[in-house]
């Protein structure tokens, strides 16, 4: 499901126009982004928590130079799945190749 389908589905379930649905989705995502940028964590019910993690300067392997390098301090966005979603997804069937069906 890509973004357009998501917008349409949410719009049809809420009975709002696709335009409004798109506007709300964009507003939500940008709000999350802006909050993460200033270091806040956002919890969406039933889905999970968007948070940031700060990695200190550390030594690590760098495949480009095939050598170890000193990676600088950085901050990355992380998502922790909510318990409800995790348990719902836990039991889904998957085929032999490991691809979820």
């Amino acid at each position, binding site marked *: *499901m890509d*973004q357009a389908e*998501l917008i349409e*589905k*949410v719009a049809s*379930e*809420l009975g*709002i126009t696709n335009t409004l*649905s798109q*506007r*709300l*989705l964009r*507003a*939500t*995502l*940008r*709000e999350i*982004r802006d*909050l*993460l*940028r200033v*270091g*806040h*964590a*956002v*919890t*969406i*019910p*039933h*889905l*999970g*928590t968007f*948070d940031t993690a700060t990695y200190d300067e550390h*030594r690590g392997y*760098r495949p480009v*130079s095939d*050598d170890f*390098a*000193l990676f*600088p*301090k*950085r*901050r*990355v*966005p992380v*998502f*922790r*799945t909510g318990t*409800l*979603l*995790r348990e*719902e*997804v*836990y*039991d*889904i069937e*998957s085929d032999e190749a*490991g*691809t*979820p069906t």
Partner: protein
Amino acid sequence: MSDDNKITLHAFTELVARRAKVSSVEADTYIHQLAKTISEELETGGEIPLYHFGRFHTTHVDEQAGHDPNSGAPLTIPEHSRVHFRPFSALRFAVNAPFRQLRIRELTEDKTTWRTRTGVWILLVLLALLLIVLGIGTKSQMFTQDATVVPPEKASAKVELASPVYEAPVKGAPAPATLSTAPAEQAIRSPAIVAAAPAESPPPTAKATATVVSVSSGDTLWSIAATTWGDPFWWPVIYAENRPELSRLNPDFIDIGVTLRIPALAGSVNSPKAADLQLKANAYRIVADDYRKLDNPLAAEFATVAARGFNK
């Protein structure tokens, strides 16, 4: 994760509502429905990419052995699926903005850093340009030496100077400016004499009281004519007079030590008689003839002058 930076759902809903310019109730409903839809999609194993934000997807985890963290008893974790969120680079850069200026530092010295320095490249380009310019300069200098500074007749004449021979470049009367003589090629003797024989019949009349000049180094026919008569343009007369004795048959070259007979003129150079003018015209014709045999371009000019005649 610490609680001090957490924002409440209520505050978040307010922010979204303000940004989307809708009521907070609508925003709250929307966010709940969005989460529900996403989780439903993930339950079916789909993935949800969101532009400039990130991608939700699920992965399959095989059955694996584990421990009960409390009792330490071994247990088997069954195969299951789990949710992942992969942030896209737009979100990554936005979040990493405070540390954007930091770079990865190599622990061992990198010997290829000069490639990223523009100054080095500019220096190399300048050096290459300098070399090219220098090369062009030397090449053009070589070509000018070949073409103009040393004309071919000088070059060939220098070779002949090894023997005690003096070459006397004589300026042509009609066009004294340019003088380019082909290398002294041994002219075929017989047609020259045949051609010159009728022309030389008049001179014997003037040969009676001839003076003699010995050619020394630096002398030219031009200079001899100038010193003896005062008019260098009469030099072909001297050449025509002495042509049978000159081995080269080249008006531009006379050998050192040769004695030249100077024909006596009926009148003088400044007030010549008709016979003298005839003599001069014949001499020019002979010179034109010899030049033509030597492939000298001056032949044409001498021939035209001879054909026009002298009427002073």
